């Protein structure tokens, strides 16, 4: 089923089940959800509710057991591993709770990494790296390594890395989970600013309802892998 106009992501009864010994874990269970283009959506739920698994399915890092999931008009379940890699490289950008910057690389090199994978010409890379780091207010920290930065700065650098390939969708997995509340709010403020200025679709996984309510347009709650609530 093609995605309807205005939908950046659309899942149709998508499930992801795991076998653990003889038990079947239903991490995501028949979730039907549509994320509109330019929307800032928060996926809320307690630990083990399946929100990160659903995010991984949207990112193309994982494949659904059943159902369909469309991103940017294409069914991720039908893509081969090369196409999924291209989807992760060009359509989506990802931010993680643990920042996941490569510690031995400088910020400049970390942010350049997606450009290398996307085979962007070398002559264009430097300006794009600078623009991305300027956007997250780290333009002066190009040569610093992640270990020389605070948690908030590292997450901003990770955000710059996610933005550098100019994706249509930003997927953030607990981006404030490793940060204090003030820094967390700064990051969410940055996400909202990106959402507004770039009209970028954002799906953020969080378990902090208050923050989600303040910054996101829409909150979808998952309970035991099922969609429990969809509130605007």
């Amino acid at each position: 089923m093609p995605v309807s106009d205005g939908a950046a992501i659309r899942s149709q009864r998508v499930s992801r089940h795991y076998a653990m010994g003889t038990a079947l874990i239903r991490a995501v269970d028949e979730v039907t959800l549509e994320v509109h283009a330019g929307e800032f959506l928060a996926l809320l739920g307690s630990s083990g509710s399946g929100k990160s698994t659903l995010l991984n399915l949207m990112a193309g890092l994982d494949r659904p057991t059943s159902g369909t999931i469309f991103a940017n008009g294409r069914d991720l379940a039908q893509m081969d591993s090369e196409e999924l890699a291209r989807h992760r490289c060009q359509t989506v950008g990802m931010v993680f709770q643990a920042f996941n910057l490569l510690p031995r690389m400088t910020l400049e090199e970390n942010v350049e990494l997606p450009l290398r994978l996307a085979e962007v010409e070398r002559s264009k890379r430097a300006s794009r790296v600078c623009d991305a780091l300027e956007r997250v207010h780290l333009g002066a920290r190009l040569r610093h390594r992640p270990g020389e930065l605070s948690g908030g700065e590292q997450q901003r650098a990770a955000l710059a890395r996610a933005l550098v390939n100019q994706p249509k969708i930003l997927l953030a997995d607990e981006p404030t989970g490793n940060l204090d509340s003030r820094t967390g709010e700064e990051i969410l403020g940055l996400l909202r600013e990106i959402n507004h200025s770039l009209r970028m679709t954002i799906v953020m996984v969080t378990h902090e309802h208050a923050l989600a309510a303040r910054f996101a347009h829409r909150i979808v709650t998952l309970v035991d892998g099922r969609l429990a609530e969809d509130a605007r």
Partner: protein
Amino acid sequence: MRSRDLAELAGRNLREALLRNALTTLGIAVGVASLVAMLSLGAGLQELVNKRLTHSGLFDKIFVTSYQNLRALGRPTPQADPGDRESRLLDDTARQQIKRLANVAEVYPEIRFLTEVEYAGRKHLTTVVAVPASARLSDAFEGMQGTFFSGPEADQAILQMDFARELISQPAALLGDQLLLRYAEREPLEPAKGSAAGTDSGEFAADFGLGFAVVRRQRSLRIVGIVETDPGAGPAGFNRGRVFIPLPLAERLRVVQMTDLRNIMRSPSAGAVVNYSTLVVRVDNPKQVAAVEDAVKHMGFMTFSLLDMTRNLHRLFAILDLFLGIFGSLALAVASLSIINTLVMAILERRREIGILKALGAADGDVRQLFFAEAGAMGLVGGALGVAMGWTIGRLINLGTNIYLRRQGLPSENIWWVPWWLVLGAVGFAVLVSLLAGIYPAARAARLDPVQALRYE
């Protein structure tokens, strides 16, 4: 991912675990060094033997004779025998035809005759051999006493050492002395001519209506050198030369040969034709002997060369190289296990990093290529280092061997040789082995589930 980015990332990854990767690379280098040292020793020995054989002046020569020479006397002449269509006379026409064949350096008659020489009033029966100017480079003249002939037709002689000792107890004292050579000349007769006028010192001429006269002559030669062995000894080695004279001079002397007598016996009129008992064909390179030999056979002559002996020798060296290569490769095989170990360790250490790369858009192929590039880079650096180490080991072996040879009073020899194909081959082989060793780790890294890898702490 582009090749340059791949190379940069691989280089960065290798530098990050510098000690471990350096040790693995050193392992490859030791393997390659052992391979290079073994094969260069084999190549050096082969080169040494080849050089010796080439300089011996035997392996680049083909000895050509006519089939007629083997026939019994009294048989019908070739023209009368329909079965002899392929049997040709080894005359000047044949000599010129052979000379025009590709890869033929020179063609000259083998002139070797039994005669009498006189020194200090004493006569000696001995064998005189004509030597071409090209023989100067052969081993026989290496380290000779005195000098080679000053010119192609110089009235000079070089003596074989044993013969020189027969003449005088201190052979070196012979240099510069005169030796009197007596021989029988085959002088062609013009109509109504039978005298020996105009010859050096004709004493007797005979014409039995055979087209030539046999004239007894003598010529004074200056002794210019003394050699240990007969440079022309080969298939005719049973009749070793003891006095050597320049080939053009010998040709000008027109000494009566065995073929002249045989021709007379066969047919009196055949005596008027000059033909050679044996022509020696020297080719540009011993490798071309077979082709030239075939061409000469095709012309209807009988040939002989020592090619078969070199073939066996090459087979022996091929087997030696194979065994040396196998033993040399063992260390490289062990080094390849070390590459697998290093890369598997790298996968464990960089599991999360691989997950991050995949999350950022790296395809399985990118991850696989990255590990291959790291394995290949270790192979390339290890290979180059190994060649340098192997070269150094070879130099040391050579140095040690030459010190030993000098102490034994023997000339220095280069028993070790690193040909360019061995340098390129060893580096290429090291890269190939490293890439093969990288197949399993690269496939394992490419297969990593990014979700699992990102959870890895």
